[in-house]
């Protein structure tokens, strides 16, 4: 059974058709990339999948459940977790505190007003585990707004990870990063996929990263699916070359 199944979803903003009859099928365990030029509708696709706003038409199935009407919070609880193209973190809190918010939500104790020592230890232990996975231990006590851009994005990914996603949506995880930071982020994505066994759907502009990581790729152009296939198939697709790769090369 597929993990994510999009059936002819569309989204219009006034007169603008941002997405038109997009279909997508993603299997459990896949590393899947969505690419396309600026304004193609990639982020809009993530917004529909994550429940940021509703689809105008079409069906969104996640893990065998039709989630069209579900709130974002409910989708997160099902294991559908996202990051944003423009980093969304808790700026005045420390790295540790940022991750802790996610951990507490995951443990179902966000509303706990008077926790015992045992619960607090459990929470802290889990935060430390997560910090280790994404190599943030050394930064734990720093305020995230003071971190380098790349580290802020790692914090956001780690927060998403705290919700134990079945499907992790990463919107341009390496956007605005230098070489070293990009390399680090790519490694983290590998670790999440291989060691944490998380299925990942990511939007990315850097073709080296896309072709290096993705098992399959969907190309969007003007809100429509131009092609779907393995990296090899996509690279060889003349329509993709004409519309997108050609202009980039």
């Amino acid at each position, binding site marked *: 059974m597929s993990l994510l199944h999009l059936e002819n979803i569309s989204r219009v903003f006034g007169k603008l058709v941002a997405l038109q009859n997009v279909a997508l099928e993603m299997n459990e365990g896949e590393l899947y990339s969505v690419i396309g030029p600026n304004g193609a509708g990639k982020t809009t696709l993530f917004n529909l999948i994550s429940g940021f706003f509703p689809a105008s038409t079409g069906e969104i199935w996640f893990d065998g459940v039709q989630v069209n009407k579900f709130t974002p919070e409910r989708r*997160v609880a099902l294991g559908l977790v996202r990051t944003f193209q423009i980093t969304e973190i808790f700026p005045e809190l420390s790295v540790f505190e940022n991750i802790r918010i996610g951990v507490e939500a995951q443990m179902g104790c966000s509303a706990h*007003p008077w926790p015992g020592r045992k619960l607090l230890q459990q929470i802290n232990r889990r935060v430390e585990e997560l910090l280790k996975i994404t190599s943030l231990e050394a930064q734990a006590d720093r305020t995230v707004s003071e971190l380098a851009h790349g580290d802020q994005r790692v914090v956001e990914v780690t927060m998403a990870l705290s919700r134990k996603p079945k499907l992790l949506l990463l919107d341009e995880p390496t956007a605005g990063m230098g070489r070293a930071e990009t390399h680090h982020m790519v490694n983290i994505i590998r670790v999440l996929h291989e060691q944490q066994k998380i299925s990942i759907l990511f939007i990315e502009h850097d073709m080296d990263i896309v072709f290096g990581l993705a098992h399959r790729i969907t190309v969007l152009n003007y809100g429509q699916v131009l092609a779907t296939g393995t990296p090899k198939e996509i690279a060889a697709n003349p329509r993709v070359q004409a519309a997108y790769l050609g202009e980039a090369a």
Partner: protein
Amino acid sequence: MSKRAYVNIVIWALLLTVPAWLPLIGGYTALASRILIFALCTMGLNLLLGFTGVMSFGQAAYFGLGGYGAGLILVHLTSNMWIAVIVGTLAGGIAAVVLGPILMNRRGIYFAMITVAIGQIFYFVAARWDSFTGGQDGLTGFSRMPLHFGSITVNLTAVPFYYFVLFFFAIGAAAVAMLLNSPLGHTFVAIRENRRRAAFLGIHVERYIWASFGIAGFLCGLAGALNALQNNFISPMDLYWVASGNFVIMAVLGGMRSFWGPLVGSIIFIGFQDYVSSIFPNNWETFIGALFIIVVLFFPNGVLGIIRRKAKVA
């Protein structure tokens, strides 16, 4: 010992010994009771303003309800002070819990406006319903009753009443402190910092705003009940939007991000009011207004923000 623990010990030691030292610097014990009462309500407000990041400009509604709750109970039903305080607390808290859903999914200025509107409704009811609330003249006909501990009877003159207030202030402050160190408190702060991120971590933001609003209502209700007992009187002006504004001023003056900010703000505001109004009885508010503007413009993190920044530089 950590610096924070040290600060806490000093503050509590000072609060416990107020009747001994305050007269030496020209104050009087009833002034300290008043400061604690306003600090307690401002702590409740600050849970919303400083820690959850939502602008309530109508907190006087719950303060006033607490006052009327306590006063009416003493007028009509019992002479037990503890019951009066509990009833006042419940009046403020339950009203906030019931009204929370109207507010919880509004944002920014809309949230603020509805809090004001609700407050004004309570004000008009209290000011018009002469037979029940005393109308514009306020509610009278009750006074502080003695406390009985077994065979011992304590008359609540200024000093014992201060300790009566301090007892409840300590409960409220301890509850807020525990809360801020709990997952619930963490979640409030997360909402202040970034609602979108919180929601996409699976947090039902509105429900938490509701919770924060409810808790603030209980604290303000408690403070309002104590205020009624302090004055042996409640005026509908306690519910008026100006009173709400004063709580906001206290929170901002002290420092909205600080646990002790409301107490500091209340000391400055009430102290200023008491001192300046004895010299300029008609326009002390101008002075508070000027002070407020200076703080907002130059020290957006309040008085404690200044101290903290100095400590960081040093």
